[in-house]
């Protein structure tokens, strides 16, 4: 069963996402909404990691050989200025999308396994990730025109 592989991918990508949210929060203190919400989302991603630990305990020992290495690219560090902020939000969106679709895949497996506990965990975490992506999309749409047209 390859579920453990996907749980591993989730673990590493949520980890990267949490770290990225925290870096963006730390690096964009001049944008208070970015700072506070990214910190809030970083905490959320870390709670998902804790949830995953319990699930992994049940499936972790059934690990198969990976078909190919799955991993999320590390966040490269924050950038400055209007365009820099836009790029950072975009990177977060890409990372969040990977996390989102991976939860979807794991959720499908959970249903196939009739694993109520995992179905419940996936439902909760998917909601959080949807909320993150919704906010990122909203904020990026707001920031893009000024950054792309007017920024020095």
């Amino acid at each position: 069963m390859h579920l453990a592989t996907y749980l591993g991918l989730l673990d590493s990508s949520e980890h990267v996402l949490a770290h990225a949210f925290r870096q963006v929060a730390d690096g964009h203190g001049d944008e208070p909404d970015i700072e506070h919400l990214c910190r809030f989302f970083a905490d959320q991603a870390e709670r998902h990691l804790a949830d995953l630990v319990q699930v992994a305990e049940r499936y972790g020992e059934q690990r198969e050989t990976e078909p190919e290495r799955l991993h999320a690219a590390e966040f490269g560090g924050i950038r400055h200025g209007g365009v820099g902020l836009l790029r950072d939000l975009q990177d977060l969106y890409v990372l969040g999308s990977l996390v989102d679709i991976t939860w979807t895949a794991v959720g499908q497996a959970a249903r196939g396994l009739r694993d109520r506990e995992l179905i419940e965990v996936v439902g909760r975490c998917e909601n959080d990730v949807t909320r993150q992506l919704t906010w990122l999309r909203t904020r990026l749409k707001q920031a893009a025109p000024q950054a792309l047209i007017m920024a020095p």
Partner: protein
Amino acid sequence: MTDRSTDVWGTRTPHARDTAWPVRVDQHLDAVDDADVDRWVQSACVLCSNGCACDIAVKDGRMVGVRGRAGDRVNHGRLGPKGLYASWQWSDQDRLTRPLVRENGELVATSWDRAMSTIVDRSRQTPALGHGFYTSGQLFLEEYYTLGVIGKAGLGTPHMDGNTRLCTATAAAALKESFGSDGQPGSYTDIDSCDAIFLFGHNMAETQTVLWSRVLDRMHGPDRPQVVAVDPRSTRVTEAARATGGVHLAPLPGTNQALMNGLLREILTNDWIDTRYVAEHTLGLDELVTTVDEYPPERVAEICGIDAGDLCRAAEIFGTTERVLSTVLQGFYQSHQATAAACQVNNLHLLRGMIGRPGCGVLQMNGQPTAQNTRECGADGDLPGFRNWNNPDHIDDLARLWNVDPLVIPHWAPPTHAMQLWRYVEQETIDFLWISATNPAVSLPQLPRIREILSRPDLFLVVQDGFLTETAQYADVVLPAAMWGEKQGTFTNATRTVHLSEQAVEPPGEARSDLDIFLDYARRMDFRDRDGQPLISWKDPEGAFEAWKECSRGRPCDYGGLTYELLRGDSGIPWPCTAEQPRGTDRLYTDGVFVTDPDQCEDYGHDLLTGGSTTPEEYRSSRPDGRAFLKAAPYTEPPETASADFPLICTTGRIVHHFHTRTKTGRSRRLREAAPSVWVELAAGDAERLGLADGDRVRVESARGAVEGPARIGAGRPGVVFIPFHYGYWDAADGHEPDGSPTAANELTLSDWDPVSKQPLFKIAAVRIAKLPED
């Protein structure tokens, strides 16, 4: 009449439930008798959001007094101390009478032609997105609408917002989230009919004194309503709560959402709900139940620092009283979960089906007198006529009305909110900033930062005002504006009531109305429609009003049936006012049908926790179909809490004797003498710990700045400090910034805002206090 600067609410005129509030006509004439008055000119007061109708006394071409209008639905003849003593007293003091331009660092007098040419030359060199407009809560409807059309259809910039963001944005946001559109559900007549009144973060006794007189007159009547007050301070309102057998809940600043979730949980677990109303007229109950279930009284008591029994008693009053009226203001609006908490007040009323019936209203209040009109006319980060920026049909509507390409109208995202606008100025992507009728150098949060932004060398700053304010002193061009009584226009109060304010006297010197200034700019910029005709065809206030009526037609704020002639009648008229409802509308949503139809609604809503926008598709698929939303959110900690370095939480607010930055009230002798300078209110226990006695001079510091003033020992909750926000520097030595002893409360406040309404957090700043050495 007594001196109403001390006898603030005047003589009581008690009355019973469901009877009319008695008339009491208040009048103040300055050194003249009734017989000497040449004429009385119809108007309404612009010194708070209540909108009391009045007549202006004119003698020898000067304003010399005011008198409340007996027949008006808002005030039944009454006026408050600010209306009586600061409506016109400023009119011949320190006024700007000629345009000024900056030459070699100094502001020098010039002609209108040169001032306007300077502005237009710079504007023509600046791209649309390089323009920002920061306006006010004190202009007239006609001026906002004209400015809105200039910005949205002339230049095509999304960067237009105003001081209303600081005072009223959350009222609008909460109404949109719950009911689909802005528009006050309740009426002031609900005070005459209610059995309990809940004031959420609303010190009505000081902020809307005439409205509080209306409450007092019920409290002194035979069947007085119970008062429940939510306020960390101890005020006249919280005293009334005790006197009427109600409850005073004093939560720690920043914990309103936990308190509200606790109240809702009590209402739900005790089944004090109108099951049928909820089933037929709302959606979202399941999520609300799940969310508030986490807030049992004991947990709420711990988060908020209140007594669990008090919480339960307040919930019981709300849940078991026949008719409950709620009002909400800055204590909720200027906190970090502002929209969420204000929506929970709407939820309380929806659960009990107490909307649209006498005595059962919700009043999401406004701060400034004409704030409602910025929201309606699109001068504040909304589109005109409560149109939805995310609905292409609404944009096409506007494009047809204005005869412009829909692409000109910026609607790729919500119009830029004030705090973001200032950030763009700071980042130098807005280089042309036009400020009208407001004073951000005193009113915005974190003033040391604002002064730096205003000092930016490349910024081209236009300030249009009646006085050389703190802000005007940074300007490149200063335009002298006519003020209240010196120009004509309409405005709308917090309960949708429209009043006409006639011109009583000529403006001083060369000062012009804000409308004439905007029209002159539009003419010089030569804004054209698709057929090459002038974009703005009107030339006077009534023409602007008629144009606005067309814009509002068919929308929730329909002015279609109003005319200047109708507004010259006995009373102001509440919108919607149409051919079918020629006398206006006292209460909205009497049939429980809300403006949530996807084709009608002003907004598709947000995640209350983050401000993420609901997509049109998600909104449609929720099938609101006229039902109201029960929106829920968990409590989150405020962004700033007490720490070892800054162990106290500072809140700022209005006081009874002053308005905004005192440009008017500070020039009234009585009001200036009643409240001459800033003070720092702190709880007795905190004062004792700090070794402070009443009157000791103290220095209050936050991570951003400092304020100095005498300590006043209050009866508020421990850990909370209060500083009135009115005291800037125009009457101090340097005139535009502190000269060693700062007095503006916003030196301390932080640049942060609610995720949905974007209203800044003036109620949560961590501070420390130290005693200053005696001179």
